[in-house]
């Protein structure tokens, strides 16, 4: 098979090869572009500026979390706790907002960062499997959340006048701050990955941990930083959500970890670690959001069908992606 079939239309040899290479590296991007183009034609209410900015805004909360997850997965680990930590971050932010904007920002970031740090410690120094440690983290964060909201009975509201609301509800040039934040964060993430030794160490640890160790790289410290960042970012995502919804919703983030993971993996990051791109994860998040939005465009579609369809689409996407990846090699 040649890349032609993957390409929207026929291309000359060289362009075909280039496309194949692009497709191989950014299969998700190709699919995203295709998906957006198609649905713009099919559903007239899809392409509207309003809808697109909605998609972007809704994607931004997931994206922030996905950024942290990307590094965790590239380091050969996984972080199942993000969903609960996200919710916890939101509740803490709303609680903090009672005591001023700074509290609303610092309290969640500190606590969630601490949770990440502890997980990192247990994983890096204790040598426990990330899957289990962060699964425990998931339980722990959720439990903590219930504790501070007395079994979820109280929901803290962000005070009406609070500047904290602006963070997610305000915008610049008609585009919500969260979107700007995400763009900035991912730009920074890309820089960290490609232009710092921490970045390459993450990849090395994920690719060949024992080798990384023998090469004298700071394996443990790298993991510490990575899981701490994941905690901070998950908390930050929750914080944004709290500002967006003006309240510390206690029922958020259930099953979010899986959504984030699939976004990252869709983005072409190897779950076994060692390879991946930051941009890919952003694309992955957008892809999921677009799929969801499109399914809604279909109108009053039974929620079960929605599940069936989005699951199937996910499978088709990864299959196509997989196939694209093999194109160049033959």
């Amino acid at each position: 098979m040649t890349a032609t079939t993957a390409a929207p239309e026929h291309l000359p040899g060289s362009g075909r090869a280039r496309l194949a290479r692009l497709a191989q590296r950014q299969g998700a991007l190709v699919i995203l572009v295709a998906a957006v183009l198609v649905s713009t034609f099919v559903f007239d209410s899809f392409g509207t500026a309003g809808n697109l900015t909605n998609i972007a805004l809704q994607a931004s909360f997931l994206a922030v979390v996905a950024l942290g997850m990307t590094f965790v997965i590239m380091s050969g680990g996984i972080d199942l706790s993000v969903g609960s930590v996200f919710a916890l971050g939101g509740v803490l932010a709303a609680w903090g907002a009672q005591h001023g904007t700074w509290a609303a920002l610092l309290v969640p970031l500190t606590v969630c960062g601490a949770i990440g740090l502890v997980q990192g410690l247990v994983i890096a120094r204790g040598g426990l499997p990330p899957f289990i440690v962060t699964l425990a983290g998931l339980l722990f964060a959720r439990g903590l959340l219930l504790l501070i909201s007395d079994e979820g009975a109280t929901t803290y509201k962000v005070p009406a006048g609070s500047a904290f609301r602006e963070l997610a509800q305000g915008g610049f040039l008609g585009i919500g701050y969260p979107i700007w934040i995400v763009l900035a964060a991912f730009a920074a993430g890309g820089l960290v990955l490609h232009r710092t030794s921490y970045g390459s160490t993450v990849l090395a640890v994920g690719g060949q941990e024992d080798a990384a160790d023998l090469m004298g790289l700071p394996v443990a410290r790298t993991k510490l930083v990575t899981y701490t960042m994941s905690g901070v970012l998950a908390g930050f995502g929750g914080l944004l959500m709290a500002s967006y919804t003006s309240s510390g919703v206690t029922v958020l983030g259930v099953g979010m970890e899986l959504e984030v993971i699939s976004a990252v993996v869709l983005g072409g990051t190897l779950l076994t670690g060692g390879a991946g791109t930051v941009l890919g994860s952003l694309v992955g998040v957008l892809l999921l959001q677009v799929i969801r939005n499109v399914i809604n465009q279909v109108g009053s579609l039974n929620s079960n069908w929605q599940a069936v369809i989005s699951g199937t689409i996910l499978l088709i996407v990864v299959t196509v992606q997989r196939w694209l990846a093999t194109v160049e090699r033959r």
Partner: protein
Amino acid sequence: TNPGEQDQAAAPSGDGGGDGQVVKESSGEDCTLEDYGAEKLDLANAVVGFSQSEPDTAAFRAAETKSIREAADAAGVERLLVTNANNELPKQIADIQNMLSQGAEFLIVAPVNSDGLDPALDAAKQKGVPVLTIDRKVTNTHCEDYVAFLGSDFYEQGRRAADAMNEATGGEAKVAILLGSSGNNVTDDRNSGFKEQVAAEYPGLEIVAEQTANFARDEGQSVAEQLLQSNPDITAIYAHNDEMALGAVTAVQAAGKQPGTDVKIVSIDGTRNAVQAIVDGNINAVIESNPRFGPLAFETAEKFFAGEAIPEDVIIEDDEYNQDNAEAELGNAF
């Protein structure tokens, strides 16, 4: 307990009637079209959106959605958009925003959660689209963010469950409570209502255990099994919804006891299975919840657009099933 069980709240209630609901009381100050600052709208040939909160596999949700659809047809709306948030608040926000961008002119919302719908409600406000919330009240500003709340008083349901429990047990019992999922308003109200009523009125009812079973039947069963094992002297079980109660029935049987007699069981909802269980003598009483909001909702909407004043809270009549009426009322269960 597993992390983050999906939550499946039940909701407000009226009489067991297979048709619309009966308003019990209306409270809060009124809201009119002008106060709200919305345009007049003829529901016939209008685009109406309904945002359901939870999967339609729950009997309650299925009935709710169904009745909205039927009422919409009856009112002859041009197009009814229905979305289901699958219990995810962000998805419900997205759903509502999507329906607005698809041109919805009036919204009926069954909120996933009392707090946090602000972005969606703001979007509606900007487009001048009135929002009617059913079965769960939002904490936002009345007559600005939403027109009114149709539903029942979960706290009241809890209190009446306590009364029913007192009835069933004759005032003397060791009670185990099967909680709904944590962090959910329905769970909180139904629990505090029950406990405060017990504390106030029924000293003979001793609450020996409260464990969450996440509104699910099989969890209700396994939790009840464990509780009955660890303290065999439990003589009554209060479940926050019918599913957990039905699970408890199986558990009691498995423990070699007779549900309904050895261990009294009271729950809230009024699903057909539960009412049948009353008939079979396995459950003692069910505080009913009526999901059929359709007629009342559209009636309220029509009044509103006709310029009439709508009160903040439209609380509907709560009925009760017990050995006396179950047989007869079975047909009204959903």
